[in-house]
């Protein structure tokens, strides 16, 4: 089971890294989403894996529980990563609509535009 989770994290990370190295905004957003999955599962896994041991206290029997702390942290991380994705999307969208291109690399042309009009 451990191997399954570890390899899944690895696959998601590799896919995420490959996508964030693309040249357009949308694949980069997808890549960030994949990386978010990978990071969330990774953090969750730091609590170690357990089956049939949800951290819901059982009043009637003495049973074992999985580690609740990473779960709580990952829960908020999932929500926050949604917020982050949303901001990223908005920025990418804004950049595309303003510049009519969703390339993420800056070219010398952009540099020239940036420095124009700035006092020396």
């Amino acid at each position: 089971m451990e191997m399954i989770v570890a390899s899944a994290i690895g696959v998601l990370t590799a896919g995420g890294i490959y996508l964030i190295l693309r040249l357009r905004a949308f694949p980069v957003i997808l890549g960030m989403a994949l990386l978010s999955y990978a990071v969330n599962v990774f953090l969750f896994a730091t609590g170690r894996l357990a089956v049939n041991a949800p951290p819901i206290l059982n009043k009637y029997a003495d049973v074992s529980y999985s580690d609740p702390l990473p779960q709580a942290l990952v829960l908020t991380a999932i929500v926050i990563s949604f917020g982050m994705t949303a901001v990223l999307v908005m920025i990418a969208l804004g950049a595309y609509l303003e510049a009519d291109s969703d390339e993420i690399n800056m070219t010398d042309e952009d540099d020239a535009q940036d420095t124009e009009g700035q006092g020396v």
Partner: protein
Amino acid sequence: MNDGSILAFIAILPFLGALVPGIMIRAGRNACASFTAVPTVLALILLGTQVPAVMRGEVVSTTIEWLPQLGLSASFFLDGLGLLFAGMILGVGLLIILYARFYLSGDDPMGQFYTYLLLFQGAMLGIVLSDNILLLLIFWELTSLSSFLLIGYWKHLPEGRQGARMALTVTGAGGLAMIGGMLILGNIVGSYNLTDILAQGDVIKASEWYMPALILILIGAFTKSAQFPFHFWLPHAMAAPTPVSAYLHSATMVKAGVFLMARMWPVLAGTDAWFYIVATTGLITMVLGAVIALFKDDLKGLLAFSTVSHLGLLTMLLGFGTKAAAIAAVFHIINHLTFKAALFMTAGIVDHEAHTRDIKRLGGLAKLMPITAIIGTITALSMAGTIPLNGFISKEMMLEEAAHTVWYNNPWIVPVLATLGACFSVAYSFRFIFHVFGGPVRDDYPSTPHDPPFGLYAAPALLTVLVVAIGAMPFLAEPLVTVAANAVTGLDTHPHLKLWHGVTPALWMSVIAFAVGGVLLAVHGKLDAIWLRMPRPEAKAIFDAIMESCVALAKAFAGGTHNGVMSRYLALLVVAAVAVGAHAYFTGGISAPTREILPVPPLVWVGWLSLVVATWLVVSQHRNRFRSLVFISIIGLVISGGFVYLSAPDLALTQISVETVTIMLLLLALYFLPKDTPAESTNGKRLRDAVVAIAGGGAVAALAMAFLTRDVDSISAYHLANSYKGGGGTNVVNVILVDFRGYDTYGEIIVLGIAGLTIFALMDALLRGPAAKRLRDRAFSPDRSRDRHPLMMVVATRAMLPMAVMVGLYIFLRGHNQPGGGFVAGLVISIALLMQYMASGFAWAQLRQRIEYHSMIGWGVIIAGLTGAGAWLAGKPFLTSAYGYLHFPPIEEFEWATAMAFDLGVFLAVLGAVMLMLYSLSRIARFAGETINVTPMDHDPSEAPEDGADEQEQKEGQ
């Protein structure tokens, strides 16, 4: 030692006072100046209360711990040297406040000036009172910064700006060197307390780190005190208003370097290295400054180089390393202050009245402005070292010391050069008197000068009285000089200051100086012509060239590495992270696995396989953006399933609801973005990226595997044990969120709210820029569905809304004990609302949306915050929860907990933020010409089918 806590108050007073002038300027310039004087006078009075103790030879000190881990404490102490400097800083500061009130014109923002002045005053006071070298360094840098503001006060003058920048660069760089030196000292002694360091002089001198520390500290002191070859910034700082020059260059800023050398004298002085570096630099600076001063036509330029020369004199005296020289240095610090501050103010008065500071355009002012002339003449004579003024006494002491100083087995070189410096000193002092005040009255002044109002000459007149008084009765200054010299040397000194020492070698040297000085002035015209023809290195040009090459170097470096290619940065980042990790893995040890591997049921294999295939499809099909979104949602589903299987029901619920809103968000965004990604990368780049990606993924997988097979001790046992007892809930994850780590959650909902508002603001800004036009001109694809809001969906979602809300409420209420809670409930309800937007259209749904999402976020954060603050009422820390049980007869026992209210805040904030984000994106769609529906259905079956279609077509045609 008596209680010195008052010292900290003295040091902080100017900083507190700095807030006042900006406000008081509204009450007029007089009020502003008066209120600026208040903190200074107060500090002076408080300092006065400490005088008797210091005069008795006591050291007043106080310590407030600040960062004890770093050895940084707000410690202050006051000994003779500190008293001398603090008195000078505050006393002259007071005179400057008075002088500036009359000097600054109505156009200058006076409030700003006084604020800067007090900041500077506070920084200087801090330097001289600090008992902790780290604290001293902080104040040291503060003087660089605040003097930058003061020197560049006339922002409209390019010279002012350039001079300020140069001063900041030079003194700031020196300050950096000094930080290094001070830290070395602290390391040698093992304490950053100045008193401890001063007691360890022998240890420091014996240390092999003595030389580096000495050189670094001296660089700091020399740059600040404008010693050769760093002297060039001082004349350029003369672009400042004259009150600033008078303050910075007589009593304070440049004296900080001298102060530091005097302060460090017991630990650093007395070695050969100290003598040769400090005394030689001082000697060169003294002679060079005096020579250049003679040929300066700008009054303030002359005084600037004279200041450089006198600072050189002080440095040289401290460099001699003898007790008598130290006494002379201390005494000259006082004397230089009195005459130089007065001279600067005189120059300012001349400039103010005649509208020029060019000596070649002045002359004959004695008859036009007699009071100014008297002040200027007396103080200039003191600068020349004329008997019976105070300048004479300390100069004699200096010459006396120089007369028997042997430099590298040569007994002549120091006395001869010192006398040469004195000659030029006499010459430029006489030039100041004769070429400005002497000679016939001219008729071509830019403005006819006359004596200024009393306010302007009061300050220099007072200083002139001091010049004469100390000269005539040097024993008046004796107690102060004694305690200060004791503090410098750490020994008992018994200075006997008197005017007449009899016919000594020093007197003969003085006589020579006056004779040669007179001759030099007589032939000044010819010398000046030669001087002007001579090639001289222009310090500013050299400085500018160095700065330019530094900037070019920095640009080349930044431009080369920071070239705007984001994918390269990211690739480098990943490679570097993997490399660091690999290094750690191969060099560090790793223990044997301790955990047993869990078995893998077949269903898990299916899930794993679908995740891997889906990831592969997302990556390989990413150019078709639509399709990749479908694949990425598969990954989310598999992960949710994984959370269920691996005992994390809360995560599964959250993941699946977040998944839904994320996909909706991306779909909405994709509506405006190109639908395909063009193929741009070459095969080589793809291969390279694949290698980087696989390396990164492999590393993360290996790391995950490594810790998954090993046990760990965590703090979770505490949470499990106390969740029910302390938090009143059986769902430990939820109790952690709303109770144990409620503060984190509180921060997180705020972040989420900020993200929502950011998106709203971005969208708002976007719709006002060029993007708006582009959006309006968009052509929509012709093959869009005619029936945007199909009957089936409208009816189904409407029926589902109450159910979805019910589910949301249920999840919310059970959250404390069973999987669920505010986060999940917020997401579920947002999905329910989003369905209405999708099914019935934006306008229709928005019309029925009565609460603004902004306020929902706000209320969420407020409710969560107030719940947390409620714990204060019970005398508990923020966010301590309380709980209990209620029993209503028909229903079963019901638990209440304050955590519930907190969770309500979380719920509202999440709901508001998610809805605001999607709402913002939808608003762009409307802006882009999306037609607005007012009815829930495009195709209402109760109407004739053709009519509805026509109507719709008309709308779209608009």
